[in-house]
């Protein structure tokens, strides 16, 4: 027990003299490699980690509670702030959950546009992942290259919905806008150039000895470990589990497009890197098919369900009944039937699930968000011990955690 005096301040939680030679390192919450607000308490023996304790909550905004005090439509922009790297995926997951709750059928053009948004968001997210992970490991060129390509995609999204990061680009029952005139041509131009760009990244990284030494056999997650820690997405598939919700429970038009999902049984950082690169190619493949689907759709964008969805603006401005309905739906909110629903979608990070319990009111009684990054942060407890400090950075990088989503 310390004696508190003016020269030696008293800290009740910290023992200064330890006999086991263990150092506790606070990694974050402001560490640039911690991808946001991750605080890791690492117990070190020399450079080796003996115990890792992720501490989260620095970005907690209480979204689940916020949802209980909002009408369903109002919650949509809040979901943007979860995985802010690919915000349309979050919008979509929520919209799909509510649509399932009320049993809405979305018009085909809205579905096609949603598919475009989902896959461009996946590309954006994967490019961002590649950029930041490469930067963490020291490959600054890849960071600049990947951000350049991501910028093109963000410009496309900006043309569509007017925002670059927090899109709010999906609505319950459809999408708010049709594609702008040059969108399809621009996206096609981008996709035509994408294989070249991916090849550039791979030339820089794939066989680079530094990259390989930082990645190979680092952060190996076995199949059992991945399953018992609730991993999903690339984290799960890199460990040899064939599981992709787009294939297992197809939503939207994923059962109409042809694509295959890359898997690996290595389970290490390098396998995850390879999967991200392969998924980008698959996303491009999906986007090509979806672009072709757009032409033979009718212009409806929102489902026709006057009880839940406002009429198109032209009806609101010309027809009295639509206007009244619109006022009721905005001021009071839609009232889905009593029931509960859980809808999981494959977001770029993994399984993004929305659980909604509706008691028939305008606000959800309970809304639970199952964000993949949360579980991928948990696995760090088990994954990091035995590794060295530099490996922490590359492992956090390949887990692809985003703290808007972890803390919610």
């Amino acid at each position, binding site marked *: 027990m310390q004696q508190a005096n003016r020269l030696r301040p008293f800290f009740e939680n910290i023992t200064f003299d330890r006999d086991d030679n263990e150092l506790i390192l606070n990694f974050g919450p402001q560490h640039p490699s911690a991808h946001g607000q991750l605080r890791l308490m690492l117990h070190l023996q020399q450079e080796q980690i003996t115990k890792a304790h992720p501490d989260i909550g620095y970005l907690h905004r209480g979204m689940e509670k916020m949802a209980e005090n909002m009408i369903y439509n109002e919650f949509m922009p809040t979901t943007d702030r979860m995985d802010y790297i690919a915000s349309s995926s979050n919008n979509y997951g929520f919209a799909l959950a509510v649509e399932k709750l009320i049993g809405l059928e979305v018009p085909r053009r809205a579905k096609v546009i949603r598919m475009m948004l989902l896959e461009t968001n996946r590309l954006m997210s994967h490019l961002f992942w590649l950029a930041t992970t490469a930067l963490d490991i020291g490959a600054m060129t890849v960071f600049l290259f990947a951000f350049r390509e991501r910028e093109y995609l963000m410009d496309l999204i900006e043309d569509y919905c*007017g925002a670059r990061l927090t899109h709010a680009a999906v609505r319950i029952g459809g999408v708010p*806008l049709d594609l702008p005139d040059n969108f399809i041509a621009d996206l096609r131009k981008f996709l035509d150039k994408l294989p070249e760009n991916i090849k550039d990244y791979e030339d820089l990284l794939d066989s680079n000895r530094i990259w390989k030494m930082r990645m190979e056999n680092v952060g190996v997650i076995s199949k059992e470990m991945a399953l018992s820690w609730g991993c999903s997405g690339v984290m799960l598939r890199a460990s040899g589990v*064939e599981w992709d919700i787009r294939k297992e429970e197809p939503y939207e038009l994923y059962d109409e497009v042809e694509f295959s999902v890359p898997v690996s049984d290595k389970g290490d950082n390098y*396998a995850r890197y390879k999967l991200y690169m392969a998924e980008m190619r698959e996303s491009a493949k999906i986007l090509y098919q979806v672009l072709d689907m757009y032409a033979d759709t009718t212009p409806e964008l929102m489902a026709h369900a006057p009880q839940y969805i406002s009429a198109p603006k032209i009806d609101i401005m010309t027809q009295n009944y639509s206007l009244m309905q619109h006022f009721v739906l905005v001021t009071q909110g839609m009232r889905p039937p009593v029931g509960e629903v859980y809808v999981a979608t494959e977001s770029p990070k993994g399984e993004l699930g929305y659980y909604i319990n509706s008691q028939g009111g305008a606000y959800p009684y309970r809304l639970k968000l199952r964000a993949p990054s949360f579980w991928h942060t948990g696995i760090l407890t088990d994954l990091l011990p035995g590794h060295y400090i530099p490996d922490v950075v590359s492992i956090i990088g390949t887990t692809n955690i985003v703290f808007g989503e972890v803390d919610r």
Partner: protein
Amino acid sequence: MHHEEVFTDRNVNESSAYYYVDIENYPTTGWDKFKQVVKRTFSGELFVGLWVVMREMIKFDIHTVQYPMEKLPIGPRYRAVHKLLRLWESGYERCIGCGLCEKICISDCIRMDTRIDENSRKEVTEYSINLGRCIFCGYCAEVCPELAIVHGQRYENASEQRAHFVIKDDMLTPLDMLKAGQQAEYPGFGAIIPGSDESVKKTPLAY
């Protein structure tokens, strides 16, 4: 082991649904590791990477924008600082003070005050958006039944005082601009689908 049972009952029929990426096996024995070291020492992959960077350099394909002097164009649907539009014909404010934007606003940053004027019409006396709170989600433009509140293109909104963020007169189209035909309709959230004018039928006057 109980995990395995879950994965037996699947509804994925295609055989090509999943494929294994091509990663060569890592060396395990000492001899293999030695061979890898030798191979890596003499391989020229770093020069490939160097070439990729050099190639970009000698292209002189420079896209740097000298920001305050030159600015990138932004899309017409961009959601920046709001504008209040006027009616084309009469020049009156479009806003009827219904309060839908105030209600839907997620960050609760719109405030308006209305009164009944001498002609017993509703008049919007105050309309303010606290841009310090606004998250630019576009819902106000989307719910507006009169296409009155829309997003503009102004994204440089630094100010010395918070009070400057909220002024109605800054958002409202000036009358001379309207007369010069410089007021633009907003094609983003809440816009009318182009070409839907044709589908509108006139309300029959005689029922």
